[in-house]
């Protein structure tokens, strides 16, 4: 358990890099879909949550599956 937590801490260094990247992708993608500022921001926020939520879910699943390894 401690070993996997340590591994998680090490992995965190590069995992965090995905957040600004997801943020930028969400904003640019939404901006290319709509013109209204409010709409762009709203859709970007939703897309950002979807991306990070999906990645978090995959992360948790993989973490649970590898818990007893």
């Amino acid at each position, binding site marked *: 358990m401690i070993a996997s937590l340590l591994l998680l801490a090490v992995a965190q260094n*590069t995992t965090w*890099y995905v957040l*600004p*990247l997801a*943020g*930028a*992708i969400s*904003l*640019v*993608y939404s*901006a*290319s*879909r*709509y*013109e*209204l*500022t*409010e*709409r*762009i921001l709203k859709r970007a926020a939703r897309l950002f949550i979807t991306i990070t939520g999906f990645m978090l879910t995959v992360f948790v699943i993989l973490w649970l599956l590898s818990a007893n390894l």
Partner: protein
Amino acid sequence: MTDSRIDLRNPLLAALLAFLFPGAGHAYQRRYFKAVIYSVCILGIYFWGCSLGEAKAVHFHLDPQKITGGRSSGRKTTAGFLAQTGVGMMALPAIVQDLRYTEQSEKEESDRRPGEILEEIDAEFTGKLNHVTFGHAEITGKISGVVRVGDYGFGTEFEGTFNGQTSDGNPVQFDLLGSRNSGSLQLGDRVTGLDNVTMSELVLETQELEFSGERRRFFVRVIDKTADLGMIEGTIARPFYNHYLAPLDSESLQYLNGKLGKQYELALVYTWIAGLLNILAVWDAFQGPAYGYGDEEPEEDSDEKSSEKAESADAPEAATAATAAAGASS
């Protein structure tokens, strides 16, 4: 179809501007909010990637098989650069640098023009001296001379002088003469992204690989008339325009991957994504937003739609239930 409320002005010009500099096309169309989003996000990711890769993440060579010694990584580099070109003006100079790099290699390989001056060198030198009189000493000073291509042992020759001083302040002056083929001249490429500048075991106790873009390897023989007096080994400055976005050879790529590891991969991915994202921005400048202005009837989410459908499907049942309940109560 583009919404009539959006003034795209000259769409072609806007698209070109958006390609050359992310956000510029939208600023030209007076769509300032989008201009800020595109420039900050796309350039932010691009420059972050460049910084992670120590400014060596963007490079291109038209003949990657040649530069990587036939390994498949060359093709990957070219495909990656194609994605990076999406950022326009930031990445396009790499093509010019490749042309300069190729021209330089072809010129050096040519032995049909004996005596042709390849370049004149007039640069600050810093390095070490291995000399019969002065022994080992740190030296700094000015190197000046010319590099010629010709039949100097069928190779390249440097002829020049060194004026400088040793680390303890003694002024020194030498005549220099070296030929690449005899091993008495080692001169880094004039145009290259990164170069091996490791000194030889003669002047260094510990041998550790060192690569540099800003500095250029310069080892040459020190002579007195024709007598061989030793070598000077060190580096001369390589100007910014000779290493910025210039091609990298396989040895430099291997060094970068070894030094930066995963960080270099991240750098590549960031710059690729930045280039690809700008394609969306270019299209938006040319054609307007893909789904419309944004104040149309809001699209319902699929789950909302399905719940609505379920509600409408339930409605007759609910009405029947309400009628039944009313009937029962009466």
